[in-house]
């Protein structure tokens, strides 16, 4: 089987929704935000693709992407080093007149020649702020069975408060769906409806030839957004099918949800729901196992390798290489890679970025509703 009719290539938009978490994307982009003690957000969708034989994946980086290049490297950890396909990273093609892409259309238009050269029948498009362990095989099967032109993935959930309360559209667009007999009949942009909605997860499946055609047309008309400018006006003409996802979904829509979705993994039920399917791959750091030294007290924590724990840690997520010294207290915190909490320090409701130091004896506390974020390389 070189390329069967069931085959799809993947396109990931790692910068989508950067504006939702401005602090975290100061030195990176959405896709490389650390999550769940040893992962980055892109690991989930990228592993999902790799696990479903989608082994020709293009990552359309836009800005702040050095951290992502470092993380993905050759794509080897996801088994995406291939002669045919494999991982491609497409930065904007720098010309005199070029600007970073606004929506998906410009980015897709820039790789139309590449897309024309590919052999896969379908294209899967996805963002990285929706964390899922997704089975694309079932989606492709359903797409074929329903004779869809486009399949749109959604889940049933209430809109996050940050979106409901937003008074502007400057954080980007999100979409809710009206569905009749499985077909999307209407799409709403930035709805503010309370209650459970059919909330699009920004995962699409579309015929490659159709995508090329649609993007080409949209681009010459100066249109920018795939959903708003291509799908929404064509809901009558195209068979746009809705695919309901019932698995575990973690959405990052602001700092609070970033904090909450990490913390939810402390519940085994949620952890198993996200990880019990196919494996999620990530960059390997070759840390040694975590060491708990006499005096350590730990309750309800998730900890990656390479940590040294001598103090007290409770209800927290610790990434690789975190050090908690003797007498230090860490409660309700997310401590990213190589954070150091020195002796006697007291940390509560913090999100510390990479290489943060909480100095000896210092007290630093956020609250349940407002966890305090401390930027990369900062010393408190």
């Amino acid at each position, binding site marked *: 089987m070189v390329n069967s009719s069931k085959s799809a290539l993947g396109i990931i938009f790692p910068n989508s929704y950067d504006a939702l978490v401005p602090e975290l994307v100061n030195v990176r982009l959405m896709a490389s935000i650390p999550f*769940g*003690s*040893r992962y980055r957000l892109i690991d989930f969708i990228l592993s999902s693709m790799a696990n479903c034989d989608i082994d020709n994946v293009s990552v359309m980086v836009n800005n702040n992407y050095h951290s992502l290049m470092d993380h993905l490297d050759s794509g080897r950890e996801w088994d995406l080093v291939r002669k045919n396909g494999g991982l491609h990273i497409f930065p904007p093609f720098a010309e005199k007149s070029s600007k970073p892409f606004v929506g998906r259309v410009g980015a897709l238009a820039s790789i139309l020649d590449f897309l024309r050269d590919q052999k896969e029948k379908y294209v899967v498009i996805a963002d990285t702020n929706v964390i899922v362990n997704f089975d694309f095989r079932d989606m492709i099967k359903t797409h074929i069975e329903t004779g869809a032109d486009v399949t749109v993935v959604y889940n049933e959930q209430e809109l996050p408060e940050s979106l409901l309360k937003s008074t502007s559209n400057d954080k980007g667009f999100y979409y809710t769906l009206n569905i009749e007999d499985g077909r999307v009949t209407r799409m709403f942009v930035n709805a503010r409806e309370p209650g459970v909605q059919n909330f699009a997860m920004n995962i699409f499946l579309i015929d490659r030839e159709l995508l090329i055609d649609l993007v080409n047309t949209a681009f010459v008309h100066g249109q920018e957004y795939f959903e708003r400018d291509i799908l929404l006006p064509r809901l009558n003409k195209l068979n746009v099918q809705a695919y309901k996802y019932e698995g575990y979904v973690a959405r990052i829509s602001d700092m609070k949800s970033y904090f909450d979705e990490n913390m939810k993994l402390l519940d085994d039920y949620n952890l198993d729901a996200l990880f019990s399917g196919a494996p999620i791959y990530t960059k*390997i750091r070759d840390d040694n*196992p975590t060491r*708990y030294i006499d005096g350590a007290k730990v*309750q*309800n924590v998730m*900890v*990656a390798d390479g940590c040294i724990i001598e103090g007290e840690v409770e209800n927290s997520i610790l990434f690789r290489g975190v050090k908690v010294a003797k007498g230090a207290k860490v409660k309700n915190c997310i401590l990213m890679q190589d954070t150091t909490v020195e002796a006697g320090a007291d940390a509560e409701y913090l999100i510390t970025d990479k290489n943060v130091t909480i100095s000896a004896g210092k007290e630093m506390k956020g609250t349940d509703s407002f966890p305090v974020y401390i930027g990369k390389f900062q010393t408190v």
Partner: protein
Amino acid sequence: MAKEMIAMLLAGGQGSRLYALTEKLAKPAVPFGGKYRIIDFPLSNCVNSGIDTVGILTQYQPLVLNEYIGNGQPWDLDRLYGGVHVLPPYQKASGSDWYKGTANAIYQNISFIERYDPKYVIILSGDQICKQDYSDFLKFHKEKDAEFSVAVMEVPWEEASRFGLMVADENDKITEFQEKPKNPKSNLASMGIYIFNWDILKKYLEEDEADPNSENDFGNNIIPNLLRDNRRMYAYHFNGYWKDVGTISSLWEANMEVLDPEHSGINLFDEDWKIYSRNSGMTGHKISAGATVENSMITDGCRIKGSVKHSILFAGVKVEKGAVIEDAVVMGGTVIKAGAVVKHCIVAENVTIGENAVVGAMPSEDEKGVATIGANVTIGANAKIGPNAMVNKNVEGGEEQW
């Protein structure tokens, strides 16, 4: 293009003194230190020392080892020219032979070595835990203008007669070799790590092969022959951590020493000398409310709801509520059910210890054994496994084994 030095790693040993642990596993593939296998140490030493070509000589139960090594990528040994190669015995036009001894294993792979045209060959052993800079050893070898060098450790005089000993003069020149002598003249124990000039090694391997009475062994044949001919032989003093983990008790002890790097000298937290391994790919480990973890090492995929004290848990170990673990080495994928008590023992991979079962015991005056449970074994609920037991078959619920 010639390589300056390549490594040949002897990994064919059965490790029969590890009993249940090596029934289906070559000794170098035995898990160690929470996320490693023994062979990770020599392989990481090689790549950290700048050696990019390693031949691994396998013979006994090689499946797990072969799969583990794969293309060598975890150790950065997937190279266009060189890299890691697994070298099992193979059939030749003139017939085929198992590796008859350590020297014969190298002899049978002379053509492999010649592909790289090396000036030096380092012979390594796949059953030791050691962090060693082989480039420093090579520097010594060159400075002495040696034809053969052996890494030696000073051991206590009262234990010296257990080792192969090198008697050396004040310039480290070896004058005599004693294999496990009753009356040791030296306390410099051979670590079984040798650097040869390739031309010398090849000459002596061929000569050794031609001798029908030879055991084809480095210690028993090659080294005595070199001495006989007054070759330039030197002893390189190594004073870092080194441990032969060929027995259950030494394997257990070495694991426990990992928990105390400040005193034992085996520091796995060394950024400048990382030990690489193939990754489990599991999530971070979890310690639930109500669990206790003291002075232990825990890695990805573990779920701890019980009590863990002074122990090493490998990837994916589950410790249920009320279970108690102390002074134990618990290898990957093992499940310890509620109320089970697991002490002073080695539990291999994918074992299930049933509810309220008891495995091993803390050492007392007359019992100091390290209970050992082989891979894939199920210990039934309420079963009791004594401190000297070596279990390689399922034990039914309520049964006792001593």
